[in-house]
Structures are given as structure tokens and as C-alpha cells.
């Protein structure tokens, strides 16, 4: 038992911190202090500087642009970025690096890794995730967007929905049905597909906060070459669910540090309003602190497993359920501290549409209210809380699946 970074990682983190301090002015108070319109460009700029110095994707093998370092370094980097008030990458990194990149490392061909991975790290290619459909959300395996192979090209028809950052993406990894006759889990394939083509139309959808970060994506005879098949044809379910593990699991340790920073800001809010002496508020803050620390430890536990070569497995579902439900409670607390100031949105809105805002963000009501609204998304995306509970009950506790309705059995 030694829940600290190794000496090598600590030295690396120190060196990295020195490098980061050179990127920002001496009185830097965090990216959250920037005007909201400037945040995305700032995040891009910092990411570019990190890339130049080889700090993006350090845990990937060297031949694909990484440094072949252990996952520990990756976590150390993310922690330090937040500590220094800097963005942990750009919005599409979740899809490019965390999900697609990790999946390609496990399932991709050598040629695919050479072709895609370096461009993901450099930021040249931005990715989005095409899983959900209007009729297939939690029941993802019922996806009905089709792809047919013709002369070495897949022809794709159908519709995806809720596709985050699709309006900014160069590529989509899309779950399609390639064998309409097979049982529903067996006829799926994961394809990489370029976005810039006449067969793809993207329409933004406005969210409850008023922003439009997700989209409908229509495929009408969209084309992608056969060599963009990820994993084997009809093995898409296995590939897609492995990818979901990356989406749910890995994030706990690095998210926890952002949540801790957010809690600092919440305490600041309570102090500003003289509410920090109230026992109820103090107790709830203490509960939140414990939760965030536990999140960090769950992340370290997952990291320990990763380092020893075991997968995270169904525990990823626990981490996802844990942080998303926590964030709802935290944002409710912020509303209680604001009191009647929740009536109007004043000041700066958050720069980050899900999870905690950027480090150093002001305590404006518009920030907290928007984060409160957005907290309702994380218990839905990447599998709803109900779906995670089903997974935990079945995969960890060994409880039986529910009987299936006749009509959804097979296809």
C-alpha cells in the first residue's frame, strides 16, 4: 500500500510544473478568469504547447507519438494542469484520446494506429462518438444505422443523435449494423468515418442550458473505406463496450482534482455570502470533501489495476455513477448557498459544459446556475445512472438480468 506517485513520477511532475509556470503570467489565477469567449482558443493554444514538448498522450507507445510512460504519468500531468489553473485538454480529447485512441491501441491494425494516433495527439484530427440513435439509447445494441460493403467502401445510412462536438469534428467513430440477420449484439461493427463529405449532415441541438454542444448526425450514403473498420466486422459490440469502459473508468482520478478545485470555489462562495458558519452548510461541504477524496482514491485504485495490467472492468460503472451523482448533490448545495440569487443569471457563464467549470472561475450566479443545469447531463450520458446500477448489480453483485420482452429478443 502506497497511494502516492513514485519518485520518478514526482520528479517528472515537478519538471512539468516548472514548464507550465512559464506558459502563464506570474499572477495567473486560472483559466476560469478568462472571458468565456476566449477559453476555447486558450485551451487549444496550451494544448499546442504541451504537444510541442511531448506532454500529450505520454502513456501511448513511442511509435505512435507517445512516450511509452506508465498511466501514472498521465494522471500526474492532469493533476498538475488543474493545480496550475490550466485546462485538461480540449473538449474533443475525451473522444479522440481517451475513447477512440485507447480502443485503437487495443483493437486497431498496425496501419490504423500509424495513420490515426499521431494525428489525434497533434490535434489535427478531432473525433466524436456516434453511438446513440433516436430509437437506441440505453439499449445501444439495438442500433439500426446500417453499413453495407461495396467495392471496398462502406456505405452508411441512418441517424445518430446527442453526438457531442460533432459540429467541430473531423472524424466520427460510428456503431453500425452490418449484419441485419444476426442477433442484435452480433451484427454490429465499429467504423471510423470522415465527417467532411456530402453524405453527412450535422444539426446542432440546443440543451437545457441554452448552449448547443451536441448534435444530430444524418448519414445518407455516407462513405468510408473498408480499412477504417475497427476490430473485426460484426465484432462491434465487444469493441464498443470496451470503449465505454475507457469512457467510464479511467477518469476518476483526474476528475477528482477538478472537483476538488470546484469545491474550493464553492467554499469561497459560502464565505463571500457569510454562509460558511452555518452548520448545515459546513456539514454538506465536509460530506462533499469526503466524496471527492474517495473519488480520488477510487481513481488510484483503478490506476493500480491498470498499472498491474488488469482492466478496470465493471468498477468503471461505479466510478461513473459515483462522480455524476456527486455532482448533482454539489450543484444543489451551490444553489442553496446562492439562495434567492438563483433567480437571475448574473456574470460569467461556465466555459466547460459538463462537470466542473475551469479552475479559478468566479463565483458568479450564472456560473453556478449553468453548472447546476448541466449536472443533469452527466447522469444521462455514457450510460444513465439506472444503466450503471444494473451493471453493478449484475456484474459485481451477480444479480440476475431482468427477463427480456419477447419483441426485443434477437432481431
Amino acid at each position: 500500500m502506497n497511494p502516492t506517485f513514485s519518485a520518478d513520477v514526482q520528479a517528472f511532475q515537478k519538471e512539468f510544473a516548472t514548464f507550465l509556470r512559464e506558459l502563464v503570467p506570474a499572477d495567473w489565477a486560472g483559466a476560469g478568469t478568462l472571458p468565456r469567449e476566449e477559453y476555447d482558443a486558450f485551451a487549444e493554444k496550451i494544448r499546442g504547447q504541451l504537444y510541442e514538448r511531448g506532454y500529450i498522450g505520454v502513456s501511448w507507445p513511442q511509435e505512435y507519438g507517445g512516450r511509452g510512460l506508465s498511466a501514472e504519468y498521465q494522471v500526474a500531468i492532469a493533476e498538475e494542469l488543474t493545480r496550475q489553473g490550466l485546462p485538461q485538454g480540449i473538449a474533443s480529447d475525451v473522444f479522440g484520446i481517451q475513447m477512440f485512441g485507447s480502443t485503437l491501441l487495443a483493437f486497431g491494425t498496425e496501419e490504423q494506429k500509424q495513420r490515426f494516433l499521431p494525428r489525434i495527439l497533434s490535434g489535427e484530427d478531432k473525433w466524436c462518438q456516434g453511438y446513440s440513435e433516436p430509437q437506441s439509447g440505453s439499449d445501444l445494441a439495438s442500433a439500426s444505422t446500417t453499413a453495407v460493403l461495396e467495392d471496398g467502401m462502406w456505405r452508411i445510412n441512418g441517424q445518430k443523435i446527442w453526438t457531442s462536438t460533432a459540429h467541430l469534428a473531423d472524424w466520427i467513430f460510428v456503431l453500425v449494423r452490418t449484419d441485419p440477420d444476426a442477433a442484435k449484439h452480433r451484427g454490429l461493427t465499429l467504423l471510423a468515418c470522415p465527417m467532411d463529405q456530402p453524405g453527412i449532415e450535422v444539426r446542432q441541438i440546443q440543451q437545457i442550458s441554452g448552449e448547443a454542444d451536441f448534435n444530430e448526425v444524418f448519414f445518407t450514403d455516407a462513405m468510408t473505406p473498408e480499412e477504417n473498420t475497427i476490430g473485426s466486422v460484426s465484432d462491434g459490440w465487444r469493441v464498443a463496450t470496451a470503449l465505454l469502459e475507457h469512457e467510464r473508468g479511467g477518469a476518476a482520478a483526474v476528475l477528482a482534482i477538478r472537483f476538488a478545485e470546484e469545491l474550493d470555489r464553492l467554499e469561497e462562495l459560502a464565505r463571500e455570502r457569510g454562509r460558511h458558519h452555518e452548520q448545515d452548510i459546513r456539514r454538506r461541504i465536509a460530506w462533499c470533501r469526503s466524496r471527492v477524496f474517495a473519488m480520488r482514491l477510487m481513481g488510484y485504485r483503478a490506476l493500480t489495476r491498470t498499472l498491474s495490467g488488469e482492466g478496470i472492468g465493471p468498477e468503471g460503472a461505479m466510478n461513473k455513477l459515483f462522480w455524476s451523482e456527486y455532482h448533482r448533490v454539489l450543484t444543489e448545495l451551490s444553489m442553496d448557498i446562492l439562495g434567492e440569487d438563483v433567480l437571475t443569471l448574473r456574470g460569467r457563464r461556465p466555459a466547460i459544459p459538463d462537470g466542473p467549470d475551469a479552475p479559478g472561475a468566479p463565483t458568479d450566479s450564472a456560473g453556478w446556475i449553468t453548472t447546476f443545469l448541466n449536472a443533469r447531463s452527466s447522469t444521462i450520458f455514457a450510460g444513465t445512472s439506472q444503466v450503471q446500477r444494473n451493471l453493478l448489480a449484475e456484474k459485481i453483485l451477480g444479480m440476475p438480468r431482468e427477463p427480456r420482452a419477447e419483441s426485443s429478443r434477437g432481431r
Partner: protein
Amino acid sequence: MQFSFSREQEDLRSSLRDFLSRRSGSEARNRVLKSGYALDRGLWDSMAQQLGLLGLALPESVGGSEAGFLETSIVLEELGRDAYAGPYFSTVAASWVLQHAGEDGATTLEQLASGSRIFTLAIADEGGTWARPGHRTTAFEVADGHRLAGLKVNVTDADTADEFVVVADLPDGPAWFRVAADAPGVSVVMGESLDLTRPIGQLVLQDAPAILVVGPAAAGEILADVNDKAAVALSAEMVGGADAALRQAVAWSLERTQFGRPIGSFQAIKHMSADALVEVETARVLTQYAAWAIDERTPDRSVVASMAKQAASDAFSLAAGNNIQIHGGIGFTWEHSAHLYFRKAKATSALFGTAPQHRDRIADLLAV
């Protein structure tokens, strides 16, 4: 980065679990429910001598094996899972004070490690707490030592203990003393304990002869240390108890059939269980870290001890409450062990600070 137990620690856990299932387990739980609390001396002696559990973290010179607090927490978790009815926590907690006794302490610790004498802590005065005992128990010096006068409340295993480790005020401040249960002027009044596996009583001291263990200079620091350790030790016990209650509920949900299917296939039951699992794992990681922090004496150990205690209290209450609900009518019967855990959840939460009290302490320590 290694946030997991070592192979040796996992071996300790599995051999202890195996031992308890043979020597204690459901038979012992049923005995408590049928005939009330009675210490199984044979089991206690085996735990001490065969497995070395009482001297686990004590020096070799007194018969211990010099393991850490982390190992102690593993033992407590397994005892909590078993709902073990005996003064393990009380005795080990007393050793945290007795270890500071110097020369005189060696024999006492030997007796403690061998299981031949049972110890417990007597800290809180009436109206006091474990963290702030009060000043109503006083000590005065006599020719052959000290005499104590006062009343200590909420003393765990008060009727089983051969010796009490007591906080009492000398003229220059609180100090720690040792008082033998059979000494003149010592009597015990037992209450009706909510926790059927941990009797609670009051210790009445009427000019009782006492031996000074730690004087006022160091006593306060040791009291703080005891509070941190007790919080984590009880958290470990509660994690074990919570996990046992959760697993008992799940096992029943697979066995019991209604509407033609196991009740464990109903989502209402699955989601209750998944939520309990999340709380148990939350408490588990916090407890595990806090135990390590105590071994390493990290600066954050008091905060994380409180974090663990409040999380473990919540987790145990939820899991044990769910367990009764998931069992239905049978879960509400005296014969069923579900209430054994439910009682333990509430009672253990109240020892060494309730969950809200620990949240207050977290807020204080973090200067919210």
C-alpha cells in the same frame, strides 16, 4: 502508486475469514440471538495465541508481531463482517495508550497480547465525549500510587474487561491511568446495549486504586491519537459489517422467488443493492487510505479518519437497513441476524463520534 493491499495482507484476510467461518460465523451469531452475549473464551484464546491477533501491531518484545495499523484494520473488517461478539476493539484500543507506559507497560502488554487479560478504554464522563471527556473524574496521589473518583460512561465491554484504561484529571491536567476491575472501589453498571455483540456499561470509581500510565504532558496528544485510530478502526469494522449485510441481502434475493422470478431480478432490489455497494466501496477506500495515513503519520490523518468514519457510518446504516427491507417479514424477526447488523450499524456510528459530528470535525480541520 499502489492503492491495494499486499499479498501478505490479503493472506491475513483470507486465513482469518476462513478461521472465523469455522470457529464463529452464523453459529456464534445465532448463539448471541438465542442466549445473549457471552464471551467465547476458547475462541478468544485462539485469536490471541494461535493467530496472534491481539499482539498484531505490538513489539516483538511483548509477544507481538510488529505489523501496522493497516493489518489491524484488516482484522477489524473481518471481525465486523462476522459480527464477532468479543472485546477485540476495546482491547486493541487500550493498547494504543498502554504502549506509552514505558517499563511498567511491558508486562501489561504481554498480558494483553497473550489474551490472558482483557482491557478497555474508559474515557467519557457523563455529558462528555471521547474527544472531550470532561473533567469530572479526578485523580489524586497517595503513598502507593493514585486513587480515582468519578463515573465513566459508554464504556465498551465494561463487564468483560479485567482492566480499564481511564482518563482522569490530575491537578495539572488530564492523564491516563490503569484500574483493575477487581480493585476495591471499582464497580460496573451495565446498560441494555443496542449492539448485542458489544455490551456497554458505566464504570463507577470510588477512590479506586490506579496506576499512572501517561502523565498530563503527553496525555492530550495520545487522546487525539486514540480518537483518530478508533475512528478508523470502527470504520474498518463497519465496512466489514456493511459488506456482510449487503452480501446477505443479495444472497437472499437470489434465493427468494416471487411473481415467478427471483426477487433479485427486480430492478428496485438491484438498484438498492447497487447503491449500497457504492457506499460500501466509498467507505472502503477512505478507510483503507486512513489506515495507511495512520501508519505513516501523514498530516492529513485526522481529516481522513473523520472522512472514513462518517462514510462508513452511512454505508453500514444503508446496507443494514436495505438488508432488512430485502428480506421482508423474515428480516424483522429476532431469530434472523439482519437486526444484529442493523443494531451494530447505529451503535457503532455513535461510538467515537457520530457521522454529523465527524463532518463538523472535517469542516473545522479544513478551516471551512
